[in-house]
């Protein structure tokens, strides 16, 4: 397996001759370095996403130690936006205009990615692999061609749940908790699309604001509606609160939770607060390997992940899947840089990012990163997963999200 790992790495990004000097008119690219920029919550209440950034940095460090991309080291400068879109704009401008980064990579958050999209497209700076699966990012690519997300379509994920309900529980009475932004509303609209003629079986919906302290009242409302199927379209903190609240109410619906909230720690916290049976049997979707899943621990991507974590982030929590997501994003970025050529330009990087057909070891088997000038959802498939026996079990074959 170790040999396979080495081969995988060698084939994917290394063993290439050093590049010549970068083009003088390409910001962020020198003969020895490629400067990328990014923003995300390194502090504040949403700093749970920090591992997405540190995971990417760790993978770039790994690539650099293996020769970089065409001999250039990747430098990834990350600014702390505290999950405030206004700061995202401020720091992104700083990265582009003062630091003169080659591209913006791995921006955390849908609202945040949208907030900088107009500016970056005006400046023709690639905004690559933003942490969002919002419809507006992918669907408006003709208007904003320099912006590409990375997460599977939120709406497509919602549609999968809708179709699953129709197939397994056609008489379901559905209650939906969703975040009151594009992330939540995309999931809800996708659910309705997937339910098709059964969409009328949504008996209640309740939204929350990310600033809400609890979602208890929303869960009570959904229970009171008579729903027997509970859709949790929420970020991890609110998803935990929703599971716990339902359990404490004695409500035992069929539960679905969005893929954003299936880090192993989510159920761990749910169980600490509501007992070991809370959340068991819940359904979600997954496209990433889970390093804690005993059935995946020998996968090449998990072995590579553990290797990178051990060397570059030895004191951080390797069980946090957000690290692995960050590495998956960084792997995709390295792929794009490699295909952008020995003397990359922003245009050649965009060309590469919109013509991807790449295996990525951090994705579950059978999934690839594919893009085209008309497909701005790099991850177009995902798996249904169910929480049983202490981890999320992969079910069946890949399902289309876009």
């Amino acid at each position, binding site marked *: 397996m170790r040999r396979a790992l080495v081969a995988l790495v060698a084939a994917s990004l290394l063993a290439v001759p050093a590049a010549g000097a970068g083009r003088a008119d390409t910001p962020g690219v020198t003969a020895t370095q490629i400067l990328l920029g990014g923003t995300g919550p390194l502090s504040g209440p949403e700093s749970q996403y920090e591992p997405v950034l540190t995971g990417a940095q760790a993978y770039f460090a790994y690539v650099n130690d293996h020769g970089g991309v065409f001999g250039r080291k990747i430098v990834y400068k990350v600014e702390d936006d505290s999950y405030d879109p206004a700061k995202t704009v401020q720091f992104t401008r700083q990265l582009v205009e003062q630091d003169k980064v080659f591209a913006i990579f791995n921006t955390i958050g849908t609202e945040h990615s949208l907030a900088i999209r107009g500016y970056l497209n005006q400046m023709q700076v690639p905004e690559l692999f933003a942490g969002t699966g919002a419809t507006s990012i992918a669907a408006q690519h003709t208007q904003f061609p320099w912006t590409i997300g990375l997460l599977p379509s939120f709406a497509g994920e919602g549609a999968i749940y809708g179709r699953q309900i129709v197939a397994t529980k056609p008489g379901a009475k559905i209650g939906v908790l969703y975040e009151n932004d594009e992330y939540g509303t995309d999931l809800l609209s996708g659910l309705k699309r997937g339910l098709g003629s059964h969409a009328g079986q949504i008996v209640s919906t309740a939204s929350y604001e990310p600033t809400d302290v609890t979602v208890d009242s929303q869960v009570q409302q959904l229970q009171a509606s008579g729903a027997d199927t509970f859709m949790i379209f929420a970020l991890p903190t609110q998803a935990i609160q929703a599971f716990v609240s339902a359990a404490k109410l004695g409500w035992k619906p069929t539960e679905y939770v969005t893929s954003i909230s299936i880090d192993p720690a989510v159920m761990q916290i749910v169980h600490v607060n509501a007992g070991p049976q809370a959340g068991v049997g819940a359904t979600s979707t997954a496209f990433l390997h889970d390093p804690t899943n005993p059935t995946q621990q020998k996968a090449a991507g998990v072995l590579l992940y553990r290797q990178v974590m051990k060397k570059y982030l030895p004191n951080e*929590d390797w069980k946090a899947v957000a690290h692995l997501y960050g590495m998956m994003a960084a792997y995709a970025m390295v792929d794009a840089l490699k295909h952008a050529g020995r003397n990359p330009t922003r245009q050649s990087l965009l060309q590469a990012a919109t013509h991807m057909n790449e295996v990525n070891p951090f994705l579950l088997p059978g999934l690839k990163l594919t893009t085209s000038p008309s497909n701005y959802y790099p991850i177009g498939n995902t798996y249904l997963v169910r929480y049983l026996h202490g981890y999320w079990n992969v079910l069946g074959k890949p399902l289309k999200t876009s």
Partner: protein
Amino acid sequence: MRAPLRAALVAVAAAASLVAASSALAANTATIAVSSSGAATTIHIFVPQTTDPIAAITIYVPAGYTANLSQAANTSIGSVNATANGHDVGLTLPLTGPVVTDNPALHTADACSPTTHAAVWNLNLSVAGQSIVLPLYVDPTAGAATELGAYQMLICLPPWDVPVGTPGRSFDGAQLLDAQFTVNNIFTVPTSGGLLAWHTLFTPYTPGTGTANLVGTFEARALVGSPSLSLKVAKKKGSYAASGKLSEGGLPLASSSVVLLRGSSATKLAKAGSATTDASGAWSKAGKLTGNKPVYFKATATVAERDATAQGCATPLPATVAPGGCTSATLGAWTVSSPVAKLKP
């Protein structure tokens, strides 16, 4: 004695006359238990949710212990598991991570204890990728503090009950409830008998202020004694009679369960029965013998943490050191095995 602690104790002494044991102080309590297994030492701290927010915990390692503080920076020396109440999210949070040595030179300006320490250990508490790093400062004691122990370990905690947005407030309004950390190959346990007390001072905040309430400082202590389990087996007409004594710190341990193992070799042993110790720590167990091959016996005993406040806090520290008194004493958990005994046919 290091400057901050000395300053604290001076302040405590000055304010001692004002203590008058307010009712609020009476509610504050905590427990600490210490156990050793091989080269590992585990320290378990529990703070009830109703206790005022804790600003600092100073643990004194008893005289007789020696500590190896020579590890290079960034060496993983153990692990920590903790539980915190995240007041901002209304959830109990399980936290876990490694204990890693840090370069003391990087901590000379830390607000908690701005001086050069013999060692600094970072307790990395993580949940879902979010990490809280709590430095723990380790030093040999000096001056008056030598009366409390050979080494002191100091940790400061941010307040959770100040308004959201207050600088220095704990993450998610996290209130530490329970922490258990294990360090390996650090402490050498003294072999002398008797129960050794790990005096531990808890200094709370004045609720809602983020200001340390020095006169509210109270003590909890961990009591540690080396366990011993003896075994003697005699043969009597097709049967055996096993007996022995169980002690902790040289003192007999009553009402404890002893498990007797037997088998055909010293390494293939299975449970043969159990017995309970009497007031003198003595136990006995008899059984039948079959066959004409040697039989091997071993006894084991496991005890959990036990409250010993009544006896353990009988002699509290002076009010100048712990104005809030000694609120708990806890005997540590351990497992002990007897030597293997061989009974010839």
